[in-house]
């Protein structure tokens, strides 16, 4: 918003390949402390409204904390001194938002997720909302305003799952996937998810409630070269091929990365999906990884009547 630090090409390429980006301990302690005071109340307010015990008209404090309506411009959605308003104005966070969804995204919704101490329920794996089409994407900010140690309810998530076409909890069957992660990290860490990333609430074996603020943002402009692209041209080759010539530092090298839970055959299809998304983000229709798109496009051009 006021000031921001744009993401690098490496960070955006990693986001495209893995579906998440971690901004470790970027939110200052004072904002985290405010969040720990107020976010649980926001959750209780939602719970009351959901269960029909809506806050009374005279309850000014609760009314002032009611969430913004879906579609509200992020800049107008939160007071600068509110927890979410202060968090999205942190330069590193503001820069990441701007780099991924532009400078005028709108709020889809926010929610406060509380995993109480001793709650050992393991939520089924899922992606939020419904099955999605197209290349444009939303982002979801997962803000942990306090330290989360292993086993203390840090969100479970599956790197590289964001481009698989599934609907909501149709993936709940998967209890263990190689390479999955459970968030751990210091207070003030914000993990940004691609909308499609598989995740789940995890058991909290700790002695403190785990609090997490989640904010989903929709882009309102083409997501075209929004990050710091000063180093992009030299690294954006379309002929980087693992069985021919590979260039150290190329974007293709980042997008070629596999995940431990990928079938080798599907890994190649993931590479194709990432290359398509990278073309969308850069406007470079000649970009490719391992020649998968190029060879088929050239053949198709030959066979078109």
């Amino acid at each position, binding site marked *: 918003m006021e000031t921001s630090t744009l993401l690098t090409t490496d960070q955006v390429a990693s986001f495209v390949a893995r579906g998440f980006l971690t901004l470790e301990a970027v939110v200052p302690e004072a904002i985290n402390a405010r969040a720990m005071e107020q976010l649980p109340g926001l959750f209780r307010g939602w719970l009351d409204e959901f269960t029909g015990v809506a806050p009374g008209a005279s309850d000014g404090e609760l009314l002032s904390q009611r969430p913004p309506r879906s579609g509200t411009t992020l800049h107008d959605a939160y007071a600068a001194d509110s927890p979410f308003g202060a968090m999205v104005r942190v330069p590193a966070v503001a820069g990441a938002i701007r780099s991924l969804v532009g400078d005028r995204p709108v709020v889809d919704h926010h929610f406060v997720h509380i995993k109480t101490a001793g709650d050992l329920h393991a939520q089924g794996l899922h992606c939020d909302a419904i099955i999605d089409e197209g290349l444009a994407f939303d982002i979801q900010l997962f803000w942990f305003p306090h330290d989360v140690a292993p086993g203390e309810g840090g969100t479970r998530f599956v790197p590289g799952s964001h*481009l*698989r*076409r*599934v609907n909501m909890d*149709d*993936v709940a*069957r*998967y*209890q*263990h*996937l*190689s390479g999955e992660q459970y968030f751990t990290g210091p207070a003030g860490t914000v993990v940004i998810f691609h909308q499609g990333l598989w995740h789940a609430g995890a058991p909290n074996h700790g002695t403190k409630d785990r609090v997490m603020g989640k904010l989903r943002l929709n882009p309102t402009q083409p997501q075209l070269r929004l990050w710091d692209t000063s180093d992009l041209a030299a690294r954006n080759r379309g002929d980087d091929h693992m069985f021919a010539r590979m260039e150290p530092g190329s974007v293709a090298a980042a997008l070629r990365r596999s995940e*431990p*839970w*990928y*079938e*080798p*055959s*599907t890994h190649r*299809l*993931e590479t*194709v*999906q990432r290359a398509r998304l990278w073309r969308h983000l850069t406007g470079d229709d000649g970009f490719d990884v391992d020649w998968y798109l190029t060879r088929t496009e050239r053949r198709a051009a030959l066979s078109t009547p």
Partner: protein
Amino acid sequence: MSVRQQVLMLWLASPSLEAHVLGWSFFDGTSGTGPQPATDPPYPTGVAALVDGWRLLQMSPMIPPTSGHEREPSFLKHEFVFERLID
């Protein structure tokens, strides 16, 4: 207590039971009183589960990709379902 079923699901790296395990789930009809998986993953391959006495119930059919969607990844492809009966 009657005979109860434990179900082990393995997702493998290829359609072969000899392929290595990418993911797994365990559903326990004994509510924890029967033998439990001891390692993560419980077996390195599908064949290793057979060797340990699990019976194969089902494996993913080999379905040709849907035309126009050949390159879209979705669920894990190579799912194997095993059972073990506990008396």
